[in-house]
């Protein structure tokens, strides 16, 4: 087991290295002088050559790109992601301000997706080719096609503007504002983010369960007179859970994409919205920092999923 974990962990190193090179290159290739952004766009017309040179010197952007790359990468390891071009505050500080909103949005979205998607998939797979199955599959196809922002509009229009059950937008912290306020504010974002994953999880669970239920050992279990509930929970679900775990791992990664949209629609002060704003402002250190954070967490999440997978299925370890 340890051998597998170490081998798998070493594989992440070249990927992370390439991730950092891609991130760095995109920002190097972007047109425009960061010094000009710092000096305030048009103001650069009035700035003296010496002023511009001083800013460039202070930012370290007159060094050769290779040196800049290693400075930047070195900083990443000690948690120094650079300084925002606009607010002149450190990127790590700005990110730390936004992390709670994003994490709680992602988790509540995935929580809803698992909470509803899993039982739907189990029910559909178990009652295959009945109306329940068909209803779940129709939902699964629809949930996948509906764009998050449009779903959000419909939810806001119906539940916030017409019925007044939920606030239109905003964010409340679970820790400082209490669970009631938190739930009121995060219900619609969680549904918006969760529906597509709910559809995906339901679909995966269903097809995985359908496959397992046709196995011989399930027939054996049934023919020796076990109650259907026990066959389902003890025998089928354990085997059927494998692909579902992989999907849930992937869902976490995809949720980051979803949260960019969700945070924008619901005005949640999170990392996704911060990223969109940074792209609009061309605030490169923030873009770079967030890209590295998201990609690194994705790589580690995948590592964890693979380890769990190997833990549950011994065949993976020895291949």
């Amino acid at each position, binding site marked *: 087991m340890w051998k597998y974990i170490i081998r798998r962990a070493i594989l992440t190193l*070249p*990927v*992370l290295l*390439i*991730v950092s090179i*891609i*991130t760095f290159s*995109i*920002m190097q*290739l*972007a*047109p425009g002088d960061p010094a000009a952004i710092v000096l305030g766009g048009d103001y650069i017309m009035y700035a003296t050559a010496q002023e511009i040179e001083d800013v460039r010197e202070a930012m370290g952007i007159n060094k050769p790109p290779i040196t800049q790359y290693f400075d930047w990468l070195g900083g990443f390891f000690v948690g120094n992601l650079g300084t925002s071009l606009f607010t002149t505050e450190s990127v790590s500080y700005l990110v730390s301000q936004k992390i709670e909103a994003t994490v709680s949005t992602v988790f509540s979205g995935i929580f809803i997706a698992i909470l509803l998607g899993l039982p739907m998939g189990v029910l559909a797979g178990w009652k*295959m*080719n009945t109306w329940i199955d068909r209803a779940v599959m129709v939902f699964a*196809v*629809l949930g*996948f*096609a*509906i*764009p*998050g*922002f*449009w779903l959000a*509009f*419909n939810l*806001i*229009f119906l539940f916030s*503007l017409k019925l007044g059950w939920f606030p239109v937008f905003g964010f409340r912290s679970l820790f400082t504002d209490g669970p009631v306020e938190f739930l009121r504010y995060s219900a619609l974002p969680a549904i918006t983010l969760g529906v597509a994953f709910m559809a995906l999880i339901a679909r995966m669970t269903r*097809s995985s369960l*359908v*496959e397992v239920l*046709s196995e011989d050992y399930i027939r054996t279990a049934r023919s020796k007179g076990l109650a259907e509930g026990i066959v389902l929970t003890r025998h089928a679900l354990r085997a059927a859970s494998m692909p579902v775990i992989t999907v849930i791992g992937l869902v976490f*990664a*995809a949720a*980051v*994409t979803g949260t*960019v*949209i969700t945070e*924008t*629609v619901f005005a949640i002060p999170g990392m996704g919205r911060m*990223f*969109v704003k940074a*792209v*609009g402002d*061309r605030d*490169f250190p923030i*873009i770079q920092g*967030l*890209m590295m954070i*998201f*990609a*690194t967490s*994705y*790589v580690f999440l995948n590592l964890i999923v693979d380890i769990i997978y190997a833990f549950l299925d011994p065949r993976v370890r020895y291949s």
Partner: protein
Amino acid sequence: MTTNRGYNPNEIRQAKGMGNRIWVQFNRMLRKNPNMIVGLFILMLFSFLTIFADFLVKYDPVAIDPVDRFMPPGSVHWFGADNIGRDVYARVIYGGRVSLLVGFMVAFLVTLAGLFIGLVSGYSPKLDMIIQRVMDALMSFPTLLLALALIAMLGGSVWNVIAVITIVDTPRMVRVVRSSVLTVREQQYVEAARGIGAPTPRILFVHIAPNTMAPVIVQATYFFALAILTEASLSFLGLGIPPEDPSWGNILSLGRKHLQQAFWIAFFPGLVLTINVLAMNLVGDGLRDALDPKLSRRA
């Protein structure tokens, strides 16, 4: 094949030639998949509307009419009018041109790039190591964030949006092609081709490539749908298609500001977008069941 089984008319038709065979297969595919007919019908209807929009739509999508501002949907403006009196129906139909162009071009380019990189990667173990790590790295970025960062570098325009979505989606196609090359290259006919001394490019493109096409075509339809969604997301965030040109994402983005007084500005482009993505998914599922039985649901 046993002789006493009698001749199946389809087999005779198949034996007559390729063109015929494709039609027979296509017919059989449609008969098995009523959902696919619905999907194809929606896509054809919509393509027709967008292509001939100049003759079918009576309003100019950019014409401003202050008298009609915020007019609700009705006989004058089918989908209502927006904050400066532009006809939402005309904007949705013309916006469909951009969306369908982006979807089609991305599906096409991703297929080309994915086939080429996937073939090389699946066939050459040395290059495979390097290519796969680069693809893994590209796939580590959340899709929308990578697209946004590339937009920050290139700037927003229709062709840049197409390029960006292609870059983001290609690694996923490469993975599909590569895994199917890995099985195909072990087949005997590939070994035979190598045995008679066929050069590597010939083996790759003449012998291996055609036999990886089934999953590639299926994936291409999904990328078509995905690209339209990504384009809409980018434009919705104000960083995709420039706001002057109508696109579904742009109209939705504007509609967001006027949700309270005019829900129709956001409602209709979203509805049309959803229906189209749904139709493409139906076609994709149908193709998958027909071309790639291994992948289909075992129901």
